[in-house]
């Protein structure tokens, strides 16, 4: 597939292969993420969702292929990306206040200690997620949904251009998830958002595209999906999602993609 390298393309994955323990996790992946995108990454466990995120962050390198973020290598573009890892990976007994955790987002190579500005930015990020009354609370005293919000605040407090969230809605109830998505929708006016969803069938109404990852990667617009179709998908009829479409400001165009 030929990829047009224009400026609107914030993330470009070009013919990516990635294997782990002799097993192909990602194979022949082409993906272009445009500015202002709000996409949900879905797919079965072990299908490569987290791998995709880590490739974009430059935490792992592809065996084959090329990744460009803002036209740079992922490592060089890192400072423009806000990242929220899977929350289960963190030690929940770690002694830290909410402020301590969020300030990590202000870590810099050049500064040993946090400045007043760092603290202000961290506070603003916490406030943006509606958690300002918890600034001095212990991180481990928060509920699951509150922890997720704090980790999003940490990803946000350096004003990133892209927000990558790995399972931001794992272990939270429906209401919390709804609140989280409305916060993300507001943020989407300022930045591109990619999130990994734990749910295969259901995606939020705020999401603009769905990226299906199962060794191969296919992106679909959600504008094509109406209420009845969501219902169908939710009941497992995944054929309703069209795999040959791509949302584009100029209209839909065929990309000739086929699932398996």
């Amino acid at each position: 597939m030929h990829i047009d390298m224009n400026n609107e393309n914030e993330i470009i994955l070009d013919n990516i292969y990635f294997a782990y323990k002799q097993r192909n996790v990602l194979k022949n992946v082409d993906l272009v993420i445009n500015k202002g995108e709000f996409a949900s990454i879905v797919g079965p466990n072990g299908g490569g969702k987290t791998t995709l995120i880590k490739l974009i962050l430059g935490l792992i390198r592809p065996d084959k292929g090329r990744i460009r973020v803002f036209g740079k290598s992922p490592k060089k573009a890192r400072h423009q990306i806000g990242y929220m890892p899977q929350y289960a990976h963190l030690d929940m007994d770690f002694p830290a206040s909410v402020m301590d955790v969020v300030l990590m987002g202000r870590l810099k190579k050049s500064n040993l200690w946090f400045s007043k500005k760092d603290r202000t930015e961290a506070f603003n990020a916490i406030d943006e997620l509606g958690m300002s009354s918890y600034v001095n609370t212990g991180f481990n005293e928060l509920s699951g949904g509150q922890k997720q919000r704090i980790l999003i605040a940490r990803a946000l407090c350096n004003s990133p251009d892209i927000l990558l969230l790995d399972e931001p809605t794992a272990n939270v109830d429906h209401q919390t998830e709804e609140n989280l998505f409305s916060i993300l929708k507001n943020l989407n006016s300022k930045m591109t958002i990619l999130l990994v969803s734990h749910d295969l069938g259901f995606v939020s109404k705020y999401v603009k595209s769905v990226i299906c990852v199962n060794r191969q990667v296919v992106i679909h617009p959600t504008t094509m999906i109406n209420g009845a179709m969501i219902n169908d998908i939710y009941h497992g009829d995944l054929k309703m999602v069209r795999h040959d479409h791509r949302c584009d400001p100029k209209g839909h165009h065929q990309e000739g993609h086929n699932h398996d």
Partner: protein
Amino acid sequence: MIDVFYAIFDPDNVFLKYAFIMGALASISFGIIGTFVTTKRIGYLAGAISHCVFGGIGLALFLQVNMGLAWFDPMLGAVLAAIIAAVTVGLVSLHAKEREDTIIGTLWAVGMASGILLIDMTPGYFNLASYLFGDILLISGKDLLYVACLDVFVLSLSILFFNRFFGVCFDSEFTSLRGINTSFFYLLLLILTALTIVLLVRIVGIVLVIALLTIPPAIASFYAKRLWQMMLYSCLFCLFFIWTGLGVSYSFSLSSGPTIIVLSGSAYLILLIIRKIM
């Protein structure tokens, strides 16, 4: 117990005074490094390092006696072995994801075994128990100076790089995304751990040092909300256990290291049970 207080100030008992001063100085490094080791959950790595120290002590004794290298004293051997072990263990845990525990376990055992073999090959009598379980009678004025220097070193690096160490312990991946060289700070942390272990082996010995490194922070974590608080509480708990242990061991003529460990270990278990019941 009161006789301990008189004994401390008895000029004939200078070793006891040294032991109490050593305990106070040691608590600072133990509390700080122990907190990092506990929160980063690398007690196992610290165990491997401490057992490798024994290999270094054995090598030093071997070279001193057999090769006539008088300047190669056990302390130097221990420091060298500890730093080499820390870097090796650190690189293994950073890069050998699959076989990590096997490799660390092997280093642990081989370090210990080679120490014993080297001592076997060295003529003369060496009191192995004093290295394994500590011996406060061996503490000298020079040791106090070493530990005071270690405190200054550990304290200044911990204050200087507090935010980086915090990041490495809590979420290393995220910290590396912020442009921080996490591998470097992880190895630095392991080297500080190694130095702390070496200098404090005098009090509790190679086998028990890990307990004193991890039990006070474990208790501190019950009460601390932030990392620096945990360090402060760890230092205080550590001081309390070392001093109480020294007092009890002196009063009842027991080995000081095991007394300190049994005291702190039972305190931890009792507090744990009380917290579960409450």
